[in-house]
């Protein structure tokens, strides 16, 4: 081989020039060209049709008491809803906002405490030896078991509910962050020590970015369990919120409202997960192998 190999020709850089708007547009176009969206719609239609057949059309035993899709949709979109909850009633949005705000407070608190705690536990083995057994004992306790203590501990319902929501999210975040740090290959620490990184460089340039993929998985799980405990908390001790709405509608025999609140929860949960994934992908550009 000739020494000329060392000077290589400039490769053509094709992928660097696409703007982000263009990229979104291109991706959307690709998505519509693929069978995905059509399969999705078909699946959804199939689900709704089954629901309709079981409840409203055939009135199969055990299903006949449940509200069917037509009734739910009619109520949901009605300007003058029979049971008082539709997209035109301000109360509906108060419920959504109350629930969302509680989850947001709990989630932010859990993230702000859980991520640093998990990072530190993973980084300092001695600290982990102190704290890990406690974490592992407290973590499996179901959130519902905390309800009495939460009510005893905090004045008013609001704080108790936020506390329950926080606890669930906190354990998920801490544990995943810890696992994230432990998943970092030893070779990166060796390389860092070789290159003369100081502890703070190791922390901020190796531990944090290395744990980031696990942290974001943890945050998605934490968001899921946060909504779970929120609804449980609101059912027991709420005045507003979607969980309260579900339970209250059950007591008041307003069954379509239950389904409206459930579907709303589903959509909000999905949107909050998507938001976390989006932030994650912004912070972890290095995970993306190809631009498109």
């Amino acid at each position, binding site marked *: 081989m000739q020494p000329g190999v*060392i000077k290589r020709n400039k490769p053509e850089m094709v992928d660097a020039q696409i703007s982000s708007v263009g990229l979104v547009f291109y991706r959307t176009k690709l998505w519509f060209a693929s069978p995905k969206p059509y399969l999705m719609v078909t699946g959804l239609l199939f689900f709704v049709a089954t629901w309709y057949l079981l409840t409203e059309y055939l009135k199969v035993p055990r299903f006949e008491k449940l509200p069917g899709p037509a009734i739910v949709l009619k109520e949901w979109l009605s300007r003058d809803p029979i049971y008082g909850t539709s997209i035109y009633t301000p109360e509906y949005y108060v419920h959504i906002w109350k629930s969302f705000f509680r989850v947001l407070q709990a989630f932010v608190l859990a993230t702000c405490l859980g991520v640093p705690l998990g990072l530190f536990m993973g980084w300092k083995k001695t600290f982990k030896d102190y704290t890990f057994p406690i974490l592992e004992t407290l973590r499996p306790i179901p959130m519902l078991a905390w309800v009495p203590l939460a009510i005893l501990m905090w004045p008013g319902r609001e704080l108790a509910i936020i506390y329950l929501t926080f606890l669930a999210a906190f354990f998920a975040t801490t544990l995943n962050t810890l696992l994230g740090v432990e998943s970092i290959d030893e070779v*990166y620490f060796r390389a860092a*020590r*070789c*290159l*003369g990184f100081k502890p703070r460089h190791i922390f901020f340039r190796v531990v944090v970015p290395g744990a980031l993929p696990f942290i974001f998985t943890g945050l998605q799980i934490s968001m899921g369990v946060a909504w779970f405990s929120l609804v449980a908390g609101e059912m027991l001790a709420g005045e507003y919120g979607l969980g309260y709405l579900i339970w209250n509608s059950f007591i008041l025999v307003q069954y379509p409202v239950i389904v409206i609140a459930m579907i709303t929860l589903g959509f909000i949960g999905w949107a909050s997960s998507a938001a976390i994934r989006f932030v994650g992908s912004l912070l972890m550009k290095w*995970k993306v192998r190809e631009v498109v």
Partner: protein
Amino acid sequence: MRNNGHNAARDENFQAGHPSGEMNIASVSKAYGVGPLRQPVLEDCSFTIESGKLTVLIGPSGCGKTTLIDILAGYEKADSGIVTIDGQPVKGPGRDRLVVFQETALFPWMTTFENVIYGPMVRKEMSRKDLESRAISLLEKVGLVDFKDKYPTQLSGGMQRRAELIRAMINNPKVMIMDEPFRGLDAMTRELMQEYYVRLFEENRATNLFVTSEIEEAIFLADQLLVMSYRPAKIREVIEIELPRPREFHMLTSKEYLNYKKEALEILHEEAMKAFASGSNVAAVDFLEAYSERQAASGQEGRDSFD
């Protein structure tokens, strides 16, 4: 040809101002496990990594090369014996001895450029501007300047190895330690990498320790070839390789090259036989098989080129 002859031309080729260290390893031993489980890995291992030379360490797979490197780098402590660099005993990892690892150790969350400059940047030894221009010139040298803003996952295996090579080089280490750095690359990329590497070495003449289990690679690169024995490992033989520099691939068919190869292979074969006779080591069987095949093949090659 053997150990005794000192290379007088060395100092003439040596570029002034380059920090180049000499490492001395004196009767280093290391064992893992205790009691009946005690497994001596290194026993009374002594050699010198000479300043400004490319020393290649070769030995059968699983003979303790990586353990030796961990000790040289300072990640592990030897049970007995002493490792010194320019007379100073080695106490822990430090940037005077940079290791290029078997598996890629580029930080995947930094771009190629950040990876290269981050070490010197946090040590604040150079001004940012000098550092950047030095990084760019090194990246140019290995053909990666167009990929400087890419993340390691977006680079091919060979590119990653080159990036890692210059990430170590930019620190001007006294000794560069390469732990089977081209393992796992396909044959063509590997050859290219050897070419890049040997050029970089010939330009800088820094002290290098290169560990491999590939005999062709070893002789092609080396000034001094250390052949390790099987466990407990020690230095079995030191062979001075006096092929001219710059090294070119056509030398792989020269008579001298084949003589060196024959010499090294005989020792390695013997060591592999020992490992085989000791029975329990599957890796040794693989090794023996591979070498006998390669020996047969190279014998064929040799005949072809001399006919």
